[in-house]
């Protein structure tokens, strides 16, 4: 067989790059990074519930009063999610196809359980996000708790969240969803560094540990909200009955 001639890079190479194995991985990492940004931003917003009904409702109202920003972000996130999901699923299918005959004796040396379950934790997060949107954005899970207004006439997001998390079963669903997020992030964060070629012998062990810790810390911060409601730390505003 003859050696293939080496091609010079051209503008068409970007297209080829994105379809290549490494380009696809970079796309997943890049969109993952954007989704990670959302996870952090959303957490910062949610934690305002600890500041009470007034702060939280004012924040929720502020977002809703900027439809361009709100819908721009929503559509942007949807597009990013579609790429993240679409490319990952394509890669996962290709990876399955790359080993048509499995080993009879399965064994693993050092792969973490988080790394082995990225597709499943990712799909679980997707299912959770759909449930979460139905719960707090559409109001389909418990319609009676949805659509209330506070004394200032704003949508009462605070009361809705507190009422929602008073059901232990719903709080549990959130905890499970956040556990999946923790697993996903604990592999994803260090993966981004490796995929973009940032692997320095001195920094990488730290990056791996920090990524693992960050994943679980972020999930714990999210879970603190239903936990605080169940523990009676975040309570219904005076005069509101379930």
């Amino acid at each position, binding site marked *: 067989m003859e050696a*293939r*001639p*080496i091609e010079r890079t051209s503008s068409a190479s970007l297209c080829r790059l994105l379809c290549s194995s490494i380009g696809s*991985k970079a796309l997943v990492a890049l969109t993952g990074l954007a989704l990670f940004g959302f996870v952090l931003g959303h957490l910062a917003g949610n934690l305002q519930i600890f500041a009470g009904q007034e702060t939280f409702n004012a924040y929720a109202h502020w977002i809703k009063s900027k439809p361009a920003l709100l819908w721009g972000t929503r559509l942007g996130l949807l597009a990013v999610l579609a790429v993240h999901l679409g490319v990952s699923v394509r890669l996962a299918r290709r990876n399955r196809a*790359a080993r048509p005959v499995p080993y009879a004796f399965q064994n693993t040396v050092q792969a973490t359980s988080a790394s082995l379950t990225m597709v499943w934790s990712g799909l679980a997060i997707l299912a959770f996000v759909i449930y979460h949107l139905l719960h707090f954005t559409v109001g389909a899970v418990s319609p009676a708790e949805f659509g209330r207004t506070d004394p200032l006439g704003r949508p009462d997001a605070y009361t809705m969240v507190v009422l929602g998390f008073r059901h232990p079963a719903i709080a549990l669903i959130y905890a499970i969803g956040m556990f999946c997020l923790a697993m996903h992030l604990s592999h994803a964060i260090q993966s981004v560094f490796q995929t973009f*070629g940032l692997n320095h012998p001195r920094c990488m062990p730290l990056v791996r540990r920090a990524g693992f810790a960050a994943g679980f810390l972020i999930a714990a911060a999210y879970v603190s909200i239903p936990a605080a409601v169940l523990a009676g730390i975040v309570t219904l505003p005076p005069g509101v009955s379930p």
Partner: protein
Amino acid sequence: MSENKRLNLTLHIWRQKNAADPGRLATYRVQGVSVHMSFLEMLDVLNEQLTAQGEEPVAFDHDCREGICGMCSLTVNGIPHGPQRGTTVCQLHMRHFADGQEITIEPWRAKAFPVVRDLVVDRSAFDRIIQAGGFVSVNTGGSPDGNALPVPKKDAEAAMDAAACIGCGACVAACKNASAMLFVAAKISHLAKLPQGQPERRERALAMVAAMDQEGFGFCSNQYECEAVCPKEISVRTIAVMNRDTLRAGLGGA
């Protein structure tokens, strides 16, 4: 462990007549295996037994039997090259096994490495990737002076670490996605670290990655099983080098 300890083993070995045969695991017993034997010598003992019984011996790849040629390729209890880190299966000694142990021996499993017979797979996909890498520019004429081209010690060592790859394919066999990225990365970063490799550096990365993708290997998902089984202990840092070079080249950067 006594010096002359002998092992009795139960082996479950993948038998497959040819590429079209679906194959199956067959069970064999070998008695009195010396702990000083290598894993391949243990298989030689089995094959003598099989030949004496008029059965077909088990086909497996091997050549140097001293850990440098990259021919031997057995998955031992799910781990390519067996349980000993940084060791080819030809250099794996039977003292790492216990008397009465059951051992499952399978070929490298990957679509890009079709089974030829029993435990022998076709690894010519690796040759095609190497060919796609093309040439390095060198001046013709008299051979240059040994030290005419200075290479920083750090770079020389990184290049040598990557050049230790013997192309056995254990990385593919161990990867949950049957990805060849550690192999390709070793070859790419070996030249990327040396001045001789610079003129074609970016093009080489693009061409080798494209060839790798064409062969039907899976894609790396950063689980690092490859690094754990590599008999030459090549680091996944080489994959980061490959990712960086490929992304830069693909984005048109220099």
